[in-house]
């Protein structure tokens, strides 16, 4: 890469790394290495984000939910499921119900925490 390209890629870098070619070249190379690595990491990160969102959307836990969908041979992927859980809540509810009938069967209700006063100490 010649100097012009290096400086173009070095925009926004801190200190002399955006102005001086010797330093900029090193930093730009490092930045490109990171981007290569992170293109692969991004896929992993997104998938774990989707799983978090799906888990938040179902009150049944994520593992049971996915197992139920698998049993019913529903092949929506996690990206779409997380989008549905955010924007189309009723469709997502339908999916959760499908999964519940498929796998655990009954509907586990999350236990409500009971408020206990100081009397328990006595």
């Amino acid at each position, binding site marked *: *890469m010649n100097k012009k390209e290096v400086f173009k890629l070095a925009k926004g870098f801190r200190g002399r790394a955006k102005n001086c070619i010797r330093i900029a070249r090193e930093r730009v*190379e490092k930045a*490109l*290495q990171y*981007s*290569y690595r992170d*293109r692969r990491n991004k896929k992993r990160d997104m998938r774990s984000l989707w799983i978090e969102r799906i888990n938040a959307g179902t009150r049944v836990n994520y593992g049971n939910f996915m197992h139920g969908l698998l049993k*019913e*041979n*529903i*092949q*929506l*992927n996690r*990206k*779409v499921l997380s*989008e*549905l859980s955010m924007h*189309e809540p*009723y*469709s997502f*509810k*339908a*999916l959760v*119900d*499908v999964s519940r*009938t498929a796998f655990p069967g009954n509907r586990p209700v999350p236990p409500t925490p009971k408020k206990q006063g100081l009397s328990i100490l006595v």
Partner: protein
Amino acid sequence: MAMSFSCPSSSCSPSITSIFTHKTYAPITATTFNFTCNPPHSSISSLQFTTPSYHRPSSSSRIVPKLSQTEPSTLVSEDEVSEPEQPESAEETLSTTEPKGEEVFAVVMIGGRQYIVFPGRFLYTQRLKGANVDDKIILNKVLLVGTKTSTYIGKPVVPNAAVHAVVEEQGLDPKVVVFKYKKKKNYRRNIGHRQPNTRIRILGITGYQDSPAATLP
């Protein structure tokens, strides 16, 4: 439109079936092409705009003769569903509400990826090899359809559902620089890469009405 000529099937490369990945059980005769060419002027006239604006669908009724390809035989899925199709007659009758009527959405699988699709919007997919600009395309792998009052969940595919789309342009993704470097070994490779893609605009979603649905009470 005065005449509607269809692309001679022979000119479309057989590799297209692999794009839509319909592995039929029956002996494949490579006739299951899901798109035909349409005269660009008439049916696509309202799609000439190039602004990537997500405006509401003008009228999905404007179009599109149901094309006479051998659709029902090609309902079989692709990479994911390897087993024969489950009886998609498993019903559930739940209640769901969705923005309805003109506003339906579908989850469709193209090129191995799934997209949530609304009529009137466009999306970028992997390059579809045999398609030229202004081709009508029918997407068969519809995994879920939602309307205002009901949701049709496919196991894995909603039967007889189809999403109509038109190919707008075949371009390239923005450039990605692939830079490989090993330290202290004098190894540097600098490669640029632009992935080919296709922009398709969704016209409408049809054919889902008879499938089992989960509806709002």
